[in-house]
């Protein structure tokens, strides 16, 4: 049981930060940014580059977050703001184009081989019957701390309130004196930085590779949609649900039902299972599980 929880938490924290950033930005710009997962890939490579040239790991990650945030902000100002004038569908396809360009650039620059981090090997720690390493504990710990900070920011500060106001009614928020443009820029930067952080921490275990972003696309989007686009903490809950589904599906022994031999669902259907959960959720709650918005009929 404990192993199940640990596995779920680890997988969820792989997805949570990136899904959070995606949902956060959606709330303000109202289009799902397909390039968002590529920011994570970019951040991973920057961290690798810094670390490989001798910068201590934590500092490398911090610099990478800043650089990724800057890239996100730059793209927002130069590309997405302009595309949004033509509508969210155009912006979404534009984000697809940006994603292609980011991947092409990194491919040309960094090549096709994965870049593994040379981290010292740590023995796994035994917690009950579950095994987890110190690096993973740091990873989950950092994610949880960041989520708490973000939640506090969102609900207990003025900036957070402004963000929420802007997300629910941009015209009214701007009319009541909130600096819509400034907040959007800040959010863009922050979402990029968080994506970079998520990507870097992920790359510590999987290595920085070109497909890192693309491999995350579907699970991250599924998590964000499950929680309701625009609801950042909902995205985190979505990530948890997806991780739980994936872990449960592969570890439930159906042998008892058909009598005798252990029988498991083939692991190839892991992603199919989480998509099925997504579809079921959307059937009952079309705007995501945590949707509380009142919509006119």
């Amino acid at each position, binding site marked *: 049981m404990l192993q199940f929880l640990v596995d779920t938490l680890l997988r969820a924290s792989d997805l949570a930060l990136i899904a959070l950033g995606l949902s956060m930005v959606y709330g303000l710009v109202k*289009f*799902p940014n397909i390039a968002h997962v590529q920011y994570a890939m970019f951040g991973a490579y920057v961290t690798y580059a810094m670390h490989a040239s001798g910068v201590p790991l934590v500092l490398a990650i911090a610099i990478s977050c800043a650089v990724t945030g800057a890239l996100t902000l730059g793209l927002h100002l130069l*590309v997405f703001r*302009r*595309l949004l004038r*033509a509508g*969210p*569908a*155009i912006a*979404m*396809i*534009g984000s*697809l*184009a*940006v*994603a*292609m*360009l980011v*991947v*092409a*650039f990194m*491919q*040309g620059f960094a*090549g*096709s081989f994965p870049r593994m981090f040379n981290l010292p090997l740590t023995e796994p720690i035994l917690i009950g019957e579950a095994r987890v390493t110190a690096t993973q504990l740091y990873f989950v710990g950092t994610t949880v701390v960041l989520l708490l900070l973000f939640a506090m920011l969102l609900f207990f500060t003025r900036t957070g309130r402004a963000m929420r106001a802007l997300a629910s009614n941009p015209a009214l928020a701007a009319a009541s004196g909130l600096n819509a443009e400034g907040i959007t820029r800040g959010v863009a930067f922050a979402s990029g930085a968080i994506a970079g952080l998520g990507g870097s921490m992920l790359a510590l275990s999987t290595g920085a590779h070109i497909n890192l972003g693309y491999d995350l*696309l*579907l699970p991250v*989007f*599924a998590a964000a*949609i499950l929680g309701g*686009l625009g609801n950042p903490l909902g995205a985190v809950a979505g990530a948890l649900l997806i991780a739980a589904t994936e872990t449960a599906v592969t570890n439930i022994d159906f042998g008892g039902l058909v009598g005798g031999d252990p029988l498991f669902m*083939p692991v*190839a*259907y892991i*992603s*199919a299972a989480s*998509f*099925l959960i*997504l*579809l079921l959720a*959307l*059937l009952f709650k*079309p*705007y*995501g599980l945590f949707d509380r918005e009142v919509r006119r009929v």
Partner: protein
Amino acid sequence: MFDFLISSVTVAGIYALMALGLNLQAGYSGLLNFGHIAFAGIGAYATGIAIQSGWGGFSGAAIGVCVAMALGWCIARLGRNLASDYWGIATLAIAEILRTAATNEVWLTGGAQGISAIPSLFDGLGRPWNAMAFLALVLLAVLVFALACRRVGNGRFGRALRLMREEPQLAACMGYDLRSLKSRAIMSGAALTALAGSLYAHYMSFVGPDYMLASETFWLWTMLMIGGLGNTAGVLVGVVVVQGAYALVPFAKDYFGFSSDISGALRLGLIGFILLASLMWRSQGLVPEKVRKIA
């Protein structure tokens, strides 16, 4: 060279059919279908499975079209309450589930190895006539369906779809059954795309789960956006531009002497650049949709 041109145009023609199918959904009706390639995959696999079971190509194509239309109906029903972004991701999820099933159900689809040795349609004719006959078939299909789509688009159905896209509440008030319109648009797009998928299976003599990767749908969307969403001529232009650029990259690589390890990056980057450029500066596409203005 001639050989290469014939095959490039044939593949472009097949993609044009798929893009026309997507245009019916995305262009006229404004439905963000990100799982469109599943219909093509269904057509291709139906052909492959039918031939393996000894039923012949025609029945394969017919079965593919029927199954694709059934899936289209289900997808349309799914979209009852869903906002467009959510529906788009739901269609993507469905396509991925189908692709996973195709990769794993070895007894049906041959698994990741796919189904090979599907007869090409005109093998009896000998070279180069078989390739030219196939090209003629594809071009004929493109012509027929492009004209049909244009006819439909300018007709009552097309106008109703556009109204549903722009002002759904007005359309509902005027008595159009939105659900039925949506279903019909998706089903007709699905049928056309499944047919294209069958042709593709015959052309490549092979079907594999990689035909249904999400990136293939993005590819079709790129063609639509560059050429012009909602306009039949635009779709064809988009296909030509994207396929042309794609086929041109290896020649450019040779001409400029680029190292082969960046050729993959070049190809992706070129398409991404063209798409972004056309979105930024001509967001309705090279051939924009002609919307009649009420003077």
